[in-house]
């Protein structure tokens, strides 16, 4: 066939360079942000900026060079976090950040790999990957921003939407209970489990830094306001009011049994560090149980 196409407009690197450099470096955290990526896409009052800043603060505190860090995200509002960070970042497919990061982490045990994604991404479409990575204890730092709904697509119910909460697909109220994420992460084998809200930035930074010291699958849930998708239909107010709501509702209880951390609408929210334990991670087991034997000449069962 004959092909008729539009004329291509080539990439103008010089103009693009100029554009992305403009104003870059004015903010003290710009060293961690990719030039030209701010302003971000998030709504006013969204909790994602706090979560991103907490991660950056933790890197800063740990004095990790960005070249040794990598962030993998799925799809959704939280999934966009990867794209803002000035390091090697991977914005993958919906729900698949964890298996992608598993490959990356096993290929590059020298890097600090963080999975940053939302509740819908990690626990609905990606739920299976999440529980298996926790079981294997892959050395991944998972930060899950939970805003109880699918924000990017306009506020639909998700796997964390509490029973009776209103969203655009549960206009009469949700008939399903939401997941208790710390409980699920713990039961699946995560070695470190914490929950904070964006009203607890200092505790959050502390938990993220602490998770970097643990070798294995760590899980931090960050409860964040989504005034557009969740706050408004549930009459929690705008971003600030939703934040105030989380302040009033949250109760710090370090060491609490994650089984008691279920979240209901207009009920208290347990926050704190719930789990902190040790067990060998996937690569340690693989090196000791598999590679060592294989290289000592053991054949294993023939295939």
């Amino acid at each position, binding site marked *: 066939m004959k092909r008729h*196409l*539009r004329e*291509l*407009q*080539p*990439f103008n*690197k010089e103009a*693009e*360079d100029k554009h*992305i450099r403009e104003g870059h470096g004015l903010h003290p955290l710009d060293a961690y942000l*990719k030039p*030209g*990526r701010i302003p971000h896409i998030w709504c006013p009052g969204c909790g994602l900026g706090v979560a991103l800043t907490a991660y950056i603060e933790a890197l800063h505190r740990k004095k990790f060079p*960005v*070249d*040794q860090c*990598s962030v*993998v995200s799925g799809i959704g509002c939280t999934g966009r976090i*990867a*794209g803002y960070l*000035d*390091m*090697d*970042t*991977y*914005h*993958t*497919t919906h729900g*698949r950040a*964890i*298996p*992608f*990061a*598993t*490959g*990356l*982490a*096993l*290929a*590059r045990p*020298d*890097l600090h790999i963080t999975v940053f994604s939302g509740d819908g991404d990690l626990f609905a479409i990606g739920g*299976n*990957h999440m529980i*298996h990575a926790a079981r*294997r204890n892959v050395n991944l730092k998972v930060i899950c921003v939970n805003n109880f709904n699918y924000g990017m697509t306009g506020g639909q119910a998700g796997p964390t939407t509490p029973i009776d909460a209103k969203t655009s697909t549960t206009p009469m109220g949700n008939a399903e209970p939401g997941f208790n994420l710390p409980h699920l992460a713990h039961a699946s084998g995560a070695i470190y489990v914490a929950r904070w809200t964006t009203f607890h930035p200092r505790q959050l930074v502390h938990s993220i830094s602490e998770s970097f010291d643990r070798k294995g699958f760590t899980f931090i849930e960050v409860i964040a306001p989504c005034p557009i998708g969740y706050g408004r239909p549930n009459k929690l107010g705008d971003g600030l009011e939703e934040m105030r709501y989380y302040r009033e509702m949250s109760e710090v209880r370090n060491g609490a049994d994650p089984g008691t951390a279920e979240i209901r609408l207009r009920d208290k929210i347990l926050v704190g560090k719930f789990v902190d334990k040790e067990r060998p991670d*996937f*690569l340690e087991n*693989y090196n000791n149980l*598999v*590679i060592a*034997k*294989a*290289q000592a000449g053991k*054949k*294993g*069962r*023939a*295939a």
Partner: protein
Amino acid sequence: MSDKDVLTGEHFIHGDAACAEGGLAAGCRFFAGYPITPATEVAERMARRLPQVGGVYIQMEDEIASMAAILGASWGGVKSMTSTSGPGFSLMMENIGLGMMTETPCVVVNIQRGGPSTGLPTLVGQADVMQARWGSHGDYGCIALAPCSPQECFDLTIHAFNLSEIYRQPVFVMADEVVAHMTERVVIPPREKIHIVGRKKPTGNPGDYLPFDSAGPLPAPMAVAGDGFHVHVTGLTHDERGYPVITDVVQERNVRHLVDKIRDNAHKIISVEETALEDADVVLIAYGCTARVARQVVEDLREKGLKVGLVRLITIWPFPSDLIRRLADRVKAFVVPEINYGQMAYEVERAAAGKAETVLFGVMGGSVHTPEEIEDLVMEYL
């Protein structure tokens, strides 16, 4: 340790094992997979062999995760592969699309069985040909190789790795159950005789580096995690720097690059085996296990003095349209035996453009054609 990756010598192994050995010889050090008949033996061999060479085998929770994991490993700078069969190939399509969009080298071995759905788990099929080409949504170029023997399973898996590095995308080894489960002599050459394409790294100033450059005939070298280039890799439409840009203008460049890097280099990628074409009146077009039967047909009929030739497709994608077009000017008919209800035959018919007849001999799966039944059909067109 490293001498264990290339098992130089003569072996008597099946096609699945040969795919695994090909991967190891090509430098694959990461395999993520999920058991599925008739591809399980690839994973089993990798589970035993990878730790011997310091690589990682991981059994994932499904094929979606397997495909995602090999992309992640590839961005970690490690050559990676997976193997599967029809139902698993379907599940991989999502992240195959991500691999295409993010220009990630890796190899997917698909041992075809009868479909659709669970179909014939233990029996042969060749019905994933179009799925390999068009299976993930959106436009992209495709490279798929179809081995017809265990030896070729070894050779073409290496070749698939090389092509995936050159063109920076997932490459498919589209074997079939017969070839994968057939045991034959496989010669693994000395290491220095095996051509391996290493991964090119960018040089120079990170500020000047365009990880998704679309200007050249070939993709840019790939900066992996930890190289200091701070690459953003996204499945969203992106500019040459990797930044998401949601506009028609960038979409135009992005997609045309993904298609054109294969289309414009197709003449370098396409590989066929031509048998007795010079004076042929009828030409068989075949691939995989079916090509072995077709060879027999040509031999038998030539012995009887009949003018029959064969084009064996080694690359099923890109398709050798030019060759078929040229042949169509002088042959009476193309006979296409394949184990499906007509897939490659559509390509042949398209390229022949009415100048020669295209005749499909479709078998729905579960068995291979016999030489006799193909011969009877060919005779009708001589």
